[in-house]
Structures are given as C-alpha cells and as structure tokens.
C-alpha cells in the first residue's frame, strides 16, 4: 500500500480552504485512503487502492478534493514544443517508450524537492514495479543543451554517476554504484544500455539507474527542470508523464512539451489527452439502484474529474484505472455519497444449509466431547519434524511450502495425532488426566493434493491404555451407526502389538494405538498416551 507524507497546510492551500478533521476523513474515504498516523502539521496518507497513482501526491489529492467540494480547478495549459528529443530506434528492443517535458518558472525549495522525490519514488517503485515498467528522471535544465538524445549506448561509454567523483564506464556503474547494484539487473543483459544525453554529448543519466553528477543533480533554488519517463509500456509512460506534468502545473510551473522524434514521426509529450468512452446512463440505476437526473449525473462525474457530454465521458488523462463502465459508475456513487444509499432488503427465498459432511463432523465432535475430551484447534500448517521424525515415521506424501516464513510452519499437516502430542508436550504442568481431541482438515500429496476431514483424540494419564482409547473410538463410531472391525497394525509410532487399523467396509478408515515410549521421549512426554485418528471424509454416511 503506497503511503505519502506532506504538510497539512500545503494541502489546504492547494485546495483553497481549510478542512475540519471530519471533512478531511470523509474526503480521504472518497480517495480510498486513510490517515496512517495522527494528523499534525504533517499528514501521512495510506492508499488502499493500488491502481490510482494520480492520487499519490499532495497535488493530486488536492485536485480530487477540490473537485469533490465543487470548487473549480485551474486549467492546466501545456506550451507547444520548441525543443526535440531524438529517439534511437535500437531502444525499441531495450526500453522502447519515452515521454518528456520541461517545467519552468518556480523556484524549488526544500519541501517541494522532497515532494517531487516522493512522487517520483512512489510512481517508479509501486506503479512502475521497481523501475521495471516505469522509471522517472528529473534534471536541472541549466546545464543541458538541446537537442537531447534517448539512445542505446555501449557499456564502455563513461560518465560520472551521482554522488561519485570520477568517470566510470556504464558497465562499472552497474557493478559499483549502489543504484547500479539495485537496478542494474533490468538492463545488464542488453548489448547496449539506454542513456539520455545532450547536444554536448554529456550523458545526463543511465536509464533506469542513475543520473549524472554534473548534469543530473537537483539543488534548492533551481527554477527550470527537465523531466523524463521511460519504460516498457507506452500507456503507463504517458500516464506517469501526465501525472507529473499535472502536479508541477498545479504548483505554478509552466509546462512545455518536447517533441520526441522517431525515425518516421514526431510525438509531442506529455500527451495530456484523456480517453473518450461511451457511457450509458441507464446502467447507473441498474448497478446502484438509484435514479439520477442528467444534471446530477453530470455533476457527479465532474466532481470525480471527468468531462461528460452527450453520453460521452472523457477520462482524465492522469487516470488509467477505468477499464469498464462499472468503474465510472462507482465514481458516480462516490460523488453521490455512499452514506446516502438507503438499504433494500433481500427478496429471494433461499434455503440455508451446511456442506454435506458438516452434520457428520459435528456429531463426531459431540461424541468426543461427551467422552470427556477437550476440543482443541491448531494451525493447519505444521512441519515434517513433528509429522514424521518425532513419530519415527517416513514421509509418504506431504504438501510442502516452497517459501515458508518459518520452518515451524513449512508444510500442511498430513495427520493430526502429532499435533496432539505436541500439544501434550506443552502442557506437562497441567492436571492429568489430559484428554484432548481435534477435528479439522489435513492434506495429503498423491498425484494431486487431497484434503480430508479427520478427527483425532488422545488420552494421557498414568494408566492410559489401548483399551481406553479403543473404547472411546468405538463409542464415537457406534453413535454414527458405523460398523467397523479392528486389524493388527504395524506402525512405528505405536508399541508393537498395541496398534490397530480401524476397518470400515473393507477399507482402512483410521487407526488406534498406544504410543511408543521412544516417540513420547522425543516429545518429552513422561505420561503414557494412547491415541486414535479417524478419516471422517472416508466414513461420511
């Protein structure tokens, strides 16, 4: 979730009015955002919708709030391009898309510089997927000579990267510079690296890695900026350029477009054109259940930054999260106010039910409870040490996690008895007899993963035996009218000759036994334990 921080006063200045806390929170709701820390002179805002990068700056947020409050936003004007950026066609296979412009006429102060860097980082890291899809460069214009080239450079070309004092080859930058180490993998495998260079052949930046120390270092007091965004997705590159141009224009900068000169065409960037889509007003009532008059619809859409005329909606050029008419309708609902929607009751008659095995599961749980067993509930995730090693068994098919957070939770349990023994080992100080059971899902790995509902119980006290647990298991099974027989079972976790298979309809449905002292020893248990585990899925009547 992206989070941004800005001066609270700055937001109010951009909106053109102060807001009380309640109003601010209400507006933040509309941005699907919330305060991430107590509001002071500084505001920290967290966004729950990751698809709205146009709100990740105080300027973007202010524009939305102004619209929602019904205030007029300043018209954003872009000056026609005068200068040019040459495009090297070899980049088509490396990092094909670029948009750039200049912003002039305002002095950068410390706060504004921080805000620009914040927006740059959020866009490149979150939206730009750590600069892979999008990266952004900002340069002071003063040392740059037009025309500029966006070209593929040999890894042996040299420049001085930011915060370094000697010239290095581009290749060396990837190896030695901290940013090179962080982002170098994005271009390392290419024969040539994308660079931005000016008419004096100075490299302004190695894209998407690092600016030059000489020409790419922003300082307080700068009042003319060059801005570029490059990437692998054309729409996203243009979107980010538009978002940045809007943010700077809101601050009073004059935005001047630049012509990107492709071999066969010239394109002025930023594009600043919003997509026009057809909009069917009737869909509002179908989806929202409210009837709005045409002027109400227009007002709602305007408040969310859209233009609306004759059934055509123009999506703001800084948004790319509108994929379907329903997205626009949600914005209508937000502008209308979620709190204004009155509830309608359910009208369909439906019959409630649990899934079929649930009744049987609950009956079996009740039996064990009636037998005096305390129910427990554990995480489904466990580990092979408990499942097998401590039980003196070998793995016969387990779903293991490729990227566990901890080894304690690195596989799905394949049976429940080890979990009960582990539980007993944590409760040795508690009064005996200890009788516990757990009912829940387990997963086995065969050719596919197979979920089963199991129930398992153990009895632990100084005279716990096979007979006692068998009595319990039989009582539970009989209650569900299940016919069973017992057959001898060799299973290393049990004492030889004191374990049995529970056979139902000729198939094994569970097992039962006295735990082997060697197993109890591994769990650190010094009280005799007998246990049973039954596969309820196999028994479902």
């Amino acid at each position: 979730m992206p989070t941004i921080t800005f001066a609270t006063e700055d937001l109010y200045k951009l909106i053109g009015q102060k807001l009380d806390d309640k109003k601010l929170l209400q507006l933040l709701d509309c941005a699907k955002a919330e305060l991430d820390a107590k509001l002071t002179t500084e505001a920290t805002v967290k966004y729950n919708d990751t698809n709205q990068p146009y709100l990740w700056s105080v300027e973007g947020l202010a524009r939305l709030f102004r619209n929602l409050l019904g205030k007029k936003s300043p018209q954003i004007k872009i000056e026609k391009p005068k200068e040019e950026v040459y495009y090297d066609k070899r980049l088509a296979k490396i990092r094909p898309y670029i948009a750039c412009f200049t912003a002039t006429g305002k002095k950068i102060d410390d706060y504004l510089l921080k805000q620009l860097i914040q927006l740059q980082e959020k866009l490149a890291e979150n939206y730009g997927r750590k600069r892979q899809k999008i990266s952004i460069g900002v340069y002071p214009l003063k040392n740059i000579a037009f025309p500029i080239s966006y070209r593929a450079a040999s890894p042996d070309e040299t420049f001085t990267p930011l915060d370094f004092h000697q010239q290095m080859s581009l290749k060396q930058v990837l190896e030695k510079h901290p940013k090179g180490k962080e982002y170098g993998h994005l271009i390392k495998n290419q024969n040539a690296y994308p660079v931005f260079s000016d008419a004096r052949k100075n490299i302004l930046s190695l894209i998407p890695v690092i600016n030059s120390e000489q020409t790419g270092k922003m300082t307080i007091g700068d009042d003319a900026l060059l801005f570029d965004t490059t990437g692998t997705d054309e729409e996203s590159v243009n979107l980010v350029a538009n978002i940045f141009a809007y943010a700077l224009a809101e601050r009073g900068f004059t935005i001047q477009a630049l012509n990107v000169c492709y071999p066969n065409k010239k394109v002025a960037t930023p594009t600043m054109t919003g997509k026009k889509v057809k909009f069917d007003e009737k869909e509002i009532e179908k989806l929202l259940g409210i009837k709005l008059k045409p002027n109400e619809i227009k007002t709602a859409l305007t408040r969310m930054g859209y233009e609306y005329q004759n059934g055509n909606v123009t999506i703001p050029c800084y948004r790319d999260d509108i994929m379907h008419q329903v997205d626009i309708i949600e914005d209508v609902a937000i502008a209308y106010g979620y709190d204004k929607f009155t509830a309608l009751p359910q009208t369909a008659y439906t019959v409630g039910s649990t899934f079929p095995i649930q009744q049987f599961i609950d009956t079996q749980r009740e039996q064990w409870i009636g037998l005096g067993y305390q129910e427990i509930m554990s995480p489904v995730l466990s580990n092979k040490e408990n499942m097998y090693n401590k039980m003196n068994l070998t793995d016969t098919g387990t779903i293991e996690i490729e990227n566990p957070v901890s080894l304690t939770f690195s596989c799905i349990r394949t049976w429940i008895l080890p979990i009960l023994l582990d539980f007993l080992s944590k409760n040795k100080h508690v009064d005996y007899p200890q009788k516990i059971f757990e009912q829940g899902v387990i997963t086995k790995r065969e050719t596919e993963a197979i979920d089963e509902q199991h129930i398992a119980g153990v009895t632990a006290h100084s005279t716990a035996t096979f007979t006692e647990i068998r009595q319990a298991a039989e009582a539970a099974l009989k209650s569900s009218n299940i016919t069973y027989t017992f057959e001898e079972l060799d299973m290393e976790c049990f004492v030889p000759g004191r374990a049995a298979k529970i056979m139902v309809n000729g198939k094994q449905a569970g097992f039962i036994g006295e735990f082997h002292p060697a197993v109890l020893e591994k769990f650190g248990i010094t009280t005799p334990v007998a246990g049973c585990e039954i596969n309820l899925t196999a028994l479902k009547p």
Partner: protein
Amino acid sequence: MDIKKLAQSLHPYERRVLPELAQHPYLADLAATTGLQEVEAMRALQWLENKKAVVIETAPQELVELDKNGQEYLKKGLPEKRFLAILLEKEIPLSRLAEKTGLTREEVNICVGLLRQKSAIILLQNKELIIKITDQGRRLLQNGFLEEKFLKKEFPLDIIELKPEEKQALEQLRKRKQIIKIDIKRIKKAILTDVGKKLISLGVRDEEFVDAITPQILRTGEWKNKTFRRYDVTINVPSISSGKKQAYRAFLDWVRKKFVGLGFQEMQGPLVETEFWNMDALYMPQFHSARDIHDAYYIKEPKYGKLDDKLVKKIQAAHENGDNTGSTGWRYQFDPERTHRHVLRTQGTACSARMLASKDLAIPGKYFGITRVFRHDVIDATHLPDFNQTEGIVIQEGLTFRHLVGLLKMFAKEFADTEEIRIVPGYFPFTEPSAELYAKHPQLGWIELGGAGIFRPEVVTPLLGKNISVCAWGLGIDRIGMFKLGLKDIRELFSQDLNFLRNTPVI
C-alpha cells in the same frame, strides 16, 4: 447450624476421632488410638475445625527416642545391671573386670562410677583392688533399675508427659553416650471447643447413620431405621474438567448456524489452490503486488494443478482485452502456465469463484464459506500464518448496490449487534463498486467489520457465461470472536494452553 444437624453431618472418621480427643489430643496418638491413618485423622480434625468443634494448634513437642546404644541396652540390658549380676556370684578384682564382664574399659569405668554412686558396690583394698556387691546392690537387682524401666517404655515419649522418676531416669541416661536422643517436632494438637464437647455429650454412634448409600443398604432396607449422614454441602470439592468445545471453534459453529438461518448455503474449496481460482478468476492481474512471492505461500510439489482449458482461455481474454465483458481488460500478456501454479489459498473468495462456475449454482442463490486461508506473515499478536475467513455471495437478477447495503446492515445486526453502520468506498480487484463496512459495536465502538462489493463483469461473465448481479462480501469475524471470547492476542484463537482452554467459557 443446630447441634443435632451438626451431629448428623459427622463423617465416620469424625465420629471415631471425636470421643478420643479428650484423652488423645495429639494427632499421631489420635490416629493410633482410632486406628485411622494419620492423614485420615487429620482430615477428620480439619472437618471438625470447619464445624467449629475443635481448634487445631500446632505446638512444638520434645520427643524422646532411643538412640543406638539405647536400643542395644534394651535388648541386652544395661551394662551396670549385667555388671552387678556378675558381682552377685563373686567378687572380682578391678583389673580383671573388663575380661570377666565382657564390657569395654570405658563401660566398666562408667559402671563403677554409677554403681558406687548408688551404693550398690564397694571397693575393698586387698592384695589388689576388689569390687564387691552390697545389700543395696542386691535390692537394686531385685527391684530393677529405674533407667532400665525407662528404656522399656514405648517410644517416642513426650517429655511433658513423663513422671518425676522417669524424668530423673531420662536425665541420667541423657548424660551417657548415644542412649537417648531428643527431637523437637511441630505437632498437631486438637483442642475441643464447647461445640465439640456438646457433640460428644450427644453420644453419636456410627451405627445410627447411613453414610454411603450402597446397593446392599438399598437391598436390605437397613437404611430404614437410620439417619442419613448430612454432608457439608458448602465446602469445596476437588475440581474436574469437562469435555467441551474449543471456544473459538464454538464461536465458528455459531457463525455457521447464523448463516444457515439466514438462508445461506455453505461452500467449500481446497486448501491447495491454483492461482487461477485464487487470483486470476477474481480479475487480479498476474502482476498484482498481492501475488508477490512475499505474500502467498507457493507449493513445492505438485507445482501445477489441472484446469478447464476453455475456462482458462476465457479468463485470459478477460485479463488481456476484456473479451465480451465490455471491459478494456488489464492490457497485458497473460501467462497461461502461471495460472496453473499451486498456492495455499490466500482468500476465501476463491470458493466464491468456484461456486460461480459450478453447475450446482442456483440463481437466485446465497452462499457462504468459513474457510481456512494462509498469509505470508510473520506471526505476532495480530498475524497468524493460517486463519479463518468468512465470506460469500448473493446472486440474483437485478441486485443493486442498495441491496448490498441492506445485506451489510443485516450482517452488522446479526454479528456485531448494531444497526449503526458506515459504508465507505473500498477497493478489491474483483468488485466494482467496492465498499468497506464499519459498524458501531455496542462495546468496541467503531470497528472495521468487513469488505464488500458487486462482482465485476470481468469476473462473472467468463465464469457464468452471462453477467448477473453478484453481491460479494467478507466479514472480519475473528474480531467479533476475539471480543466475545475476551481475547487480546490472535494467537489465543488457536491456543495450545490446556489450562486456558479448560477455563475459557464456551459462548
């Protein structure tokens, strides 16, 4: 309680102990006299004390015990006695005393000293020093030594209870080596109160009472002329643990029952899920940050699951270009291999997606699931690696956002006991419009109760073949559960502490 009722409530032990108390106030003594074990006698005293019939005191007691030599002398007789007995036959020269009596030199010296003191012997100077018994000595032999009588008493002896001449004997023996030892013990002593004395004066006898009602008593009818012993029903009894539901599981049972009562049908799905059902079918683009390696658990083997190719193609098209859903799609190249990749289910909504594509789906229909889901989180007071999600869908032609509001209001009332709710814009990749539900819980105040929305056409159309309104919701039911169970730490939902489980009430 009046004295008669009190008498009727005496336990057989108490009745055995009570009459003996005047003579035998000390516990050990009392036990010996009544033939009870010491613990039994003590229990009887405690019960009597509860009834205010006795006061139990703990007093220091000096107990006399026989030491090593004392025990030996008890068997063989005191050395001075044996010495004197030999002298009775003949006089013996002092130099040959040890040889003739079989005593050690040291014993001989003591004997000579002692017996002279008692005027039982005299020393005669002949050629050598000769020892001879006196008349006093003869009488002594005849009457017996005081000290020897003392040794023959039953030990241990309470010093306080000794007669003057016994005390004298004790004093003598104490001076000598390892005959007597004195232990100081803290002993229990019961003193009768007025109530106790009255009880005794009532003269309650065992045979007048029925204690345990046994089959034999019932068969023979011997209870008919007797009184039933009354119990003290107010005293504590040893506690036992009942078998019962785990409290959180009981809460989930309650939730399940609620949904069934509201007309919802339960749905389920596998723990090991393909990315297809877990994410792609829910219109989460494959580049979505929630699909990062740090957010979902990926399965080692089997790496990939089986899917219906036709369905995969439809979802692929919805992602890439919107297909026939009226959407632009996410506009990226969908990876059909990745969609088969196995993960541990991260959201219960996967079950809703399966339900939409199921031939068992009923329209109109209401579905819910209480599903185990997994998150790639470090465990702490608010995060578990696996936990339960409660969510579901309502599908019906013509449902609108206002129906969704109605649904959420109903949930708030049923699960959080409130009609005060706040619905604010939210975001989920699979719903539009999306909403967050806040409810003003009577005790907790405003809480985030869940998220909801209307499924996007990009979700419904490929799975169902047409676009029908589907209200989808998920409730943060654990929050309510923790409140109801009085828990602060989410780990306690899966508590591994047996005492805690035994003592937590089931709601």
